[in-house]
């Protein structure tokens, strides 16, 4: 789900990079010391997650764990996502530095909306977690498709939305598993956002 360099207009990418740095500053500003280990560990999980890929229908999609990031970190998810993407680019050559901002904003939006869904207490806990996981994939996917179409790229991309929906279901299950795991092992982590 990472967008490589050379696909989206460079001017937009640079603007997105600046915006992303601004978002890191805004969401990281009021971080308390006790939030920091959680942010670091989530960033590590996000970093590892992109390695785990599923070859489906001739292409390959990878886990994002953005639902988990949204549930655990809420508004503070953006710095973790930015850091994970930065290291993925530098070390795995996955994505690009120019498109770092665009990717971060896409995924940040996914994590943020996953958090919003998670906060709707009216729904049953398990369903909330599953939906948060799905939103964490579907929102970045929609943003990515919109960006591709605006750049005139990716004629095949619409057909791949089905594959991403499948991935969204898998992520929903993983987020549900994560929430149940934390509820059993350390419930405090779920109430901190």
């Amino acid at each position, binding site marked *: *789900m*990472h*967008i*490589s*360099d*050379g*696909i989206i207009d460079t001017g937009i990418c640079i603007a997105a990079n600046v915006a992303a740095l601004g978002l890191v500053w805004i969401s990281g500003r009021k*971080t*308390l*010391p*006790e939030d*920091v*280990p*959680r*942010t*670091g*560990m*989530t*960033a*590590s*999980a996000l*970093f*590892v997650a*992109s*390695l*785990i*890929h*599923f*070859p489906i229908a*001739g*292409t*390959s999609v*990878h886990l994002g764990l953005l639902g988990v990031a949204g549930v655990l970190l809420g508004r503070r998810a953006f710095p973790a996502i930015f*850091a*994970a993407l930065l*290291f*993925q680019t*530098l*070390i*795995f*050559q*996955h*994505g690009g530095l120019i498109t770092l901002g665009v990717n971060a904003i896409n995924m940040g939006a996914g994590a943020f909306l996953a958090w919003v869904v998670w906060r709707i207490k009216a729904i049953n806990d398990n369903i909330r977690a599953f939906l948060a996981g799905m939103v964490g994939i579907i929102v970045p996917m929609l943003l*990515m498709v919109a960006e*591709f179409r605006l750049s005139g*790229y*990716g*004629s*095949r*991309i619409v057909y*791949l939305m089905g594959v991403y929906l499948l991935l969204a279901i898998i992520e929903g299950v*993983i987020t549900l598993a*994560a929430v149940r*795991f*934390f509820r059993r*092992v*350390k419930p*405090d*982590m779920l109430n901190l956002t």
Partner: protein
Amino acid sequence: MSFHKVPFGSFRLQLALSGQTMITNTQSRLYRQALNTFYTMPKFISILIISLFTLNTSVFGHSIQVEIARHAPVVSVKASYSPTSPLAGVGVNIYAPEEDQPYQTGHTDRQGYFVFHPTTSGSWIFEIDDQHGHKKRTTISIDENFIKGVAKAQESLEEKEEELSGTTVKGQKKPAVPSITEKTTSIADMPIIYKLILGLALIFGITGIYYGMSSRKSLKKRD
């Protein structure tokens, strides 16, 4: 709470160096919260990784990997996501040196191979794009001898490299994993497990430094 009850070695050392014999409630709370987080998340990550490993052994790796094989005068490129998932039927553009328009366009075959025949020396560019966000441009340098179909020029280059690195036995197979003594000059050439450890180490390190700095700030405020 006296610091003898603090099991973490480096934390005890830090306290001892700063002359503290008792830790404050705030320090104790911060320390316990950090420990709890560090103990919980790795369990979750490892459960996730192990369960996925049982489903699919080639689970790691995702960006486009390109292997270039030179068979003078022709170059064969294999593109894949991982050793078991080739990029089949994906669009390729070949650019001749110093040209903006593609010299050749085509698609990879079922095993991810694409072959082209360069006719001028210089840096040729192989560009592959799977139309869903993954694009890769690789530069392939071609010299005059390659175009003439002389494979010997490539071989003598390899012999020189072996002499320089100290392996003088000819005909011996190079190890599949780059050993530490070989010139692995870039991060891209490292095996994936080393890259993973490097990335995690960087994240943990930066998190730890930031945590230390912000804890110190908040402790100063409370004093």
